[in-house]
């Protein structure tokens, strides 16, 4: 068994697509109209055939309170691996990203947490 897709609930798919591609640097893989929403997935440019990230609409009534509670306590909805957390922190802040946790070294692993502008926090991890 392998992980084929993982998902984040986004408030606005179009806005999410822009943030996850223009700012975070992912690439669009599938964009299929499904009624009001889209089947919208992304991949890393380093692994175009790797695990896809689904930008899933937040329409279900259970989703907004779930997201609000996680964000308030600083809990990330997803975690992405990077080569250099501090360099990414500087790069993303230049692009206007807001962090709720600055780079933190924790026994060989460095992490930071940022806002994806679509209702989620995203963790970036180095050395995992």
């Amino acid at each position, binding site marked *: 068994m392998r992980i084929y897709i993982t998902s984040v609930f986004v408030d606005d798919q179009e806005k999410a697509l822009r943030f996850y591609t223009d700012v975070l640097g992912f690439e669009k893989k599938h964009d299929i109209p499904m009624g009001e929403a889209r089947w919208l997935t992304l991949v890393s440019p380093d692994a175009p055939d790797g695990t896809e990230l689904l930008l899933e609409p937040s329409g279900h009534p259970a989703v907004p309170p779930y997201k609000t509670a996680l964000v308030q*306590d*600083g*809990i*990330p909805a997803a975690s992405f691996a990077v080569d250099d957390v501090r360099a990414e922190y500087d790069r993303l802040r230049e692009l206007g990203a807001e962090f*709720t*946790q600055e780079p933190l070294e*924790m*026994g060989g692993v460095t*992490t930071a*947490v940022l806002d994806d502008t679509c209702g989620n926090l995203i963790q970036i991890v180095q050395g995992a």
Partner: protein
Amino acid sequence: MAEDVFKALADPTRRRILDELAERNGQTLFEICARLVTKHGLSLSRQAISQHLAVLESAGLVVSRRQGRYKFHDLNTEPLEHIVTRWLSPEPPESTP
């Protein structure tokens, strides 16, 4: 108030939380939990950490602040100053015989 401060400081986990906030203010609950686990091997539930934070807050040692949709915790050392100065008052002048 001083009683609350002593009670809050009596617990080792709460002292660790203050240590970590002294290193960096403005931490989310998530960051505090992550620091306690990875740096001190204290794997408590988030709910337990929340309760410890509530004790520290009621003693005035931690102040939580809402910023937009986030909630950050800051260290407040003011209550400690009252404790320290309590026994560090200047010596009374020597009485003349």
